[in-house]
Each structure stands twice: as C-alpha cells, then as structure tokens.
C-alpha cells in the first residue's frame, strides 16, 4: 500500500517537474520570438508545412462532421417541428465547440506529431548540437518558428473546418432533407453572436495552437537521441496535447462561457 502511494507520489512529482520544464521552455520560446534576427523564412516554411499541408484533412473532416451534425440535428428537430432551426444547431455546435476542438485534435495528429518527430530526429542526428556549435540557438532557429506557426495556422484551420462544416450541414439539411435554404441561413445568422461565439472560438483556437505548438516542440526538443526516443516523443505529443486540449476546452468554456 505504502509502495503504491510512493509510486503515485513519484508520478505526481515527475509530472510537476515536467510541467515546470515545459513552462521554462515556453519562456525560452517567448524570448526567442523577440530576439533578432527574425526567422521569417523558417516561419513561412512552417506555415506551409503545418497549415497548407493540413488543408485537405481539415477540409474533408469539417465537411463530414457538418454532414453528420446536419443529419443528427434534423432527426432530432423534426420531432419537435423545429427543422427551421437546423442552421443554428449546426452553426453553434461547430463554432462554439466542435470546430476548435476537432481541428486542434486533427492538427495534433497530423502536424504536432510531425513536428515532434522532426525535431526529435534533429536531436538524434546531432543537428541541434551542430547548430549550437555554430553559435546558433536551436530554440530560436528550429523551435520558435514551428511553435509560432502553429499558433497562427490553428485559427485559420479552425475557420476552414467550420465553414466547410456549415456547408456539409447545409448539403444534408437543404437539398437532402428539404429544409428551407433561407430558414437555414436565417437561423444560423440570428443564433451566432460575433463577440461571444466567433471571437470565443478564435480564443480557443489560439490557446489550442499555443498548447499544441509548445507540447510538440518541447517533446521533440527533449527527446532521447535514439529512434525509440523519437517514437516516444511523437506518441506523447499526441496523447498529452489531446488531453490538454480537452481539459483546456472545459476551463475556457467554464470561465468565459465560450
């Protein structure tokens, strides 16, 4: 029993130490953002890799989720004769919750894991040590552009996910189920508040971008310099970032009512 408690205590301490290291790492990344020279080229490369290369998966997923929402929403609303509110149901579900959360989870699986693996491989092949030996800070050149790019692309990917989700809901609701097109759009417009819903959604997307960007780069940067280390960094990035996103989502919703 005591041994089990001791193990639990050791796990908690290790977790707290890990969070402390992540906080210090975040501080280094923050300082690197304002340090010269600006890494514009590296940043744009990462925006392409993390953002542009994620467009298809985000777009297809958003459209599919919108179609499911449209179908489920219609089947529920039709019982109450309220199918004209389908646009509001699909829109609020996507904008307030599903859009930012599912986009962040998808981005974690595609771009976050790739970032951790890429940096982990650079550690294993001594490329980061090579940079240090050339008096170049790897956090400034390698980590910071990736973390910042993740923060920038997350709201854009979320917006794409939501727009295509709304389109998916429209396709199921209007042509397939016969909901009036005007009613779909009108209920959507009247239900969605720009400040509470859209800006709140943007806040979530930015926070999730910070989380995924920091966790992925931190796991890669601190990985063991072996192939197993790279694999572990990739796996833990997906697990830790996904759980963090869901926990953070609850707190943002609870604290700001978004």
């Amino acid at each position, binding site marked *: 029993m005591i041994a089990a408690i001791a193990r639990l205590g050791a796990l908690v301490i290790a977790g707290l130490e890990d969070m402390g290291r992540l906080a210090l790492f975040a501080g280094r990344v923050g300082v690197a953002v304002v340090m010269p020279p600006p890494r514009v080229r590296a940043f744009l490369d990462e925006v392409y890799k993390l953002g542009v290369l994620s467009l298809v998966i985000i777009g297809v997923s958003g459209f599919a989720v919108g179609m499911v929402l449209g179908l489920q929403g219609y089947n529920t609303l039709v019982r109450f004769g309220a199918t004209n509110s389908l646009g509001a149901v699909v829109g609020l579900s996507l904008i307030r919750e599903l859009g930012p959360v599912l986009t962040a989870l998808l981005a974690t699986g595609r771009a976050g894991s790739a970032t951790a693996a890429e940096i982990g491989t650079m550690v294993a*092949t001594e490329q980061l040590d090579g940079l*240090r030996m050339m008096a170049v800070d790897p956090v400034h050149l390698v980590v910071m552009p990736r973390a910042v790019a993740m923060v920038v692309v997350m709201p854009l990917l979320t917006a794409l996910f939501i727009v295509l989700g709304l389109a998916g809901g429209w396709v199921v609701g209007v042509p397939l189920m016969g909901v009036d097109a005007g009613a779909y759009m009108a209920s959507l417009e009247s239900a969605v508040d720009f400040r509470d819903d859209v800006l709140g959604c943007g806040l979530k997307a930015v926070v999730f971008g910070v989380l995924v960007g920091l966790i992925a780069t931190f796991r890669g940067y601190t990985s063991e310099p072996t192939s197993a280390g790279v694999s572990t960094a990739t796996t833990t990035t997906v697990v830790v970032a996904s759980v963090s996103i869901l926990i953070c989502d609850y707190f943002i919703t609870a604290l700001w009512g978004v």
Partner: protein
Amino acid sequence: MEAEPHVRLRHVRMAFGSRRVFDDLSCAFAPGKVSVVLGGSGSGKSTMLRLIAGLVRPTAGEIWVCGEDVTRLSERALGRVRRKLGMMFQNGALLDSLTVFDNLAFPLREHRALPPQAIADAVHRRLHDVGLEGVDALLPRQLSGGMTKRAALARALMMDPVVLLCDEPFSGLDPISLRRVEDLLLRVNREQGITMIVVSHHIASTVRMADNVVLLLPDRAVEGPPAALLDSDDALVRAFMREEDVAADTPFEGTA
C-alpha cells in the same frame, strides 16, 4: 617557453547517472598541434569533446577553452567561445533540409554580413580544399560516408576556428577515403595552424598524424607523443598502442 594551451581540462569529474565516465581527468592541448584522444569503447572520448564544446557540463572540475572556463558560462556566453571552435561530428550533423552549399554557407549567413558572392566564393574554396566539387545542390542524404565527413569538415572550417574538434573522423571509411581525410586534416593544421583535437580509435592514423596522444585508460589518462606511448613502460599503454592481444579481462573501459 611553451605556449599556453588552447584547451585545458583540470580535475574533471563526469558521470551519466550512476555511470562514472571521468573521476579526475586533467590534460592539456597545445596550440597549433594535432592531438589524438584514444581509448576503449565507453572510455569517454566523445564525451571529452562534448565537454570541451560545452555541450554537456561536468559534475566537477574546470575546462578552459581559449582563456575561458566553459563550465561556468551561460548558454549565451558559450556562443562567444563556440565561434572560435569548429566541430566535425561523427555522422556529420549536416542540416538535412539544406543542400551542401547552404550547409556551408549557413554559419557565414548567420554571423557575417557578407554579400552573396563572397559567401559563394568562400563555400567553393572550402569545398575545393576538402576535395568536394560539384556537390553544391546535393542534400546530405545523397552523399556517401566519406563525402559527408569531408562536407562536415568543410563546414567546421567555414568560420576559421582556432580549435577544431573532430569526433571519429575515420570511422566507417574505406582505406583510401581514410587517408584522404587524414591528409586533409594535416594540411589544414599545417596551413592554418589550427589546434586539432581528434577522437579516434584508429592507431595507424594516430601514429602518422598526432603530435600528442591522450590515451584514456580506466583509471587514468596517459599523455605523450605517439612514439613515447608505443615504447611506454606501461604494458597496458603499449598493448593498446600496438594493438596487441591482451587478456580478455583487461579493463579498457571505465573511468579515467
């Protein structure tokens, strides 16, 4: 009067977890000389280079590089010292997303405000020095092992270092490539007077090129010119240098 060493280790103690690498290591590397660090597997040869470069910190002791104790410097201050160092990593450590040209141009673009043509000239001069031409546009993964080593050496020399650290420059090379890299290191040393610290387990190369040898043994480090170590009174040193058979339980690994 002998010149002040460019690199000096004093009473260095180093451990990775419970595994001790060095207990009390002291040695010095004279300016302009080629020093080769020898030792069994796990004796801490590469760790010694990483300590000198400030990539890892010792548990105790001092490491003086170009007049500064790198054990006490912050990461930012270490950058100042590292600009005087060049390091050729065992596997090259070239940036795999950049071409050979961009890898060599990288330190100049980072630290020197040179026009593109001057950078291109400097890169091509270095590539010529190491016998690599026509590889500008190749990525590191498209190079052979020997070419990678030479490209890594060229990059390490781009900033005209005071001290060049080479980690196993001969490992994995065929005899011809090995002699080519060896000749190259010697030529760079003679022409530019760069202090070289070469980690190796290749005795024949060591005898040919070293001015000084540091042999890491389990309980101590032995220093001296190769000829002196070849004729050492210490049977273990002699056996190692002459690549003679030793008893299976002879301890070559462990702490120095």
